């Protein structure tokens, strides 16, 4: 089973996502990467993240992404 960390690493392998609490402010993810991330999260966890949730604050950190997935019923 892929993890959130694994998905992030797949998108941007050059970064260590466990060291940051603000992926966007730290330049690790940009808006375009978020589009890719949403697509990968949908496919991996079998959810469909709605447009209303595609906001930078939901993708700033692993904790924020985990919270978002839990909202869609994903057990992590």
């Amino acid at each position: 089973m892929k993890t959130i960390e694994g998905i992030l690493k797949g998108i941007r392998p050059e970064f260590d996502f466990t060291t940051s609490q603000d992926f966007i402010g730290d330049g690790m993810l940009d808006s375009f990467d978020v589009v890719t991330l949403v697509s990968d999260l949908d496919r991996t966890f079998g959810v469909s993240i709605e447009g209303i949730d595609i906001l930078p604050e939901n993708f700033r950190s692993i904790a924020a992404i985990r919270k978002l997935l839990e909202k869609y019923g994903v057990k992590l």
Partner: protein
Amino acid sequence: MRQLTHASEFRDALQKVKSERPSFATNFYATPEAIDGWIARGRLFLEEREGCLLLFRRDQDFHHLHYAAADSGTLAAALGDRRAPWRSGTVTADLIGREADLGITVETFVGAGFYRHASLVRMSRIGDSSSPEAYADPEVVFAEPQDAPAIHTFLAQLLDRYSEQLPDLEEIHAALSHRGLLVLRRGEDLGGVLFFETTGLTSVLRYWFVNDRFRNLGIGARLIRTYFRLCKASKRIVLWVISDNDDAIAKYEHYRFRREGLVDHVVIRKGDTAS
């Protein structure tokens, strides 16, 4: 179409579109700082439609169109309104994403009278902190405020204004103040310019040009090697390049840039009454 005077007007309108429909698609990726700057300069205009928000950013004598739409149907309806005032002028849109995901969006714009103007691809270079660039060149320097008009004129002569986002003087001054503009002078002339923006671990190489009069003198290499040294803490450098500019792509590949999966299809609609 109304002029925005505060970012909250945009956020409220966006939230309305989001809350009305379950899905949502957009080509608006600007940072809050960029939005505030455009509003302060009177550049942003908003048009609200059922399930769709159209945002127009004035640029010289045309507008960049951004959208936030519930689906392609609401977007097509908003773009197809023949009475909309924006249809009298020239409008461009950047349709960004993975190639496989963009088909319907491009078709929607083409169906509303837009035509394909250019395509850009994103490339990136992953830094290697174990081999820092030690290069130092005394002739490659940060641009000074008095260089701004010459840099603007220089870029205006080289850039395709519809697809390459010509920076205005305010943006150039902002880049100067952030030490994001390198120049190499040749007498009274600019021999070359390199414009970049760095956020955290990522740097964006926006423009890198050599004056036609000083080609084949190694100026471009000197500029980019200085840039690599300055941003050696950046783990990633990204840029957009016109997809059929094979010479530029080959040059970037020489410097270890590789294509990513993202493309930007630039579409244009000339005004109904424009010549």
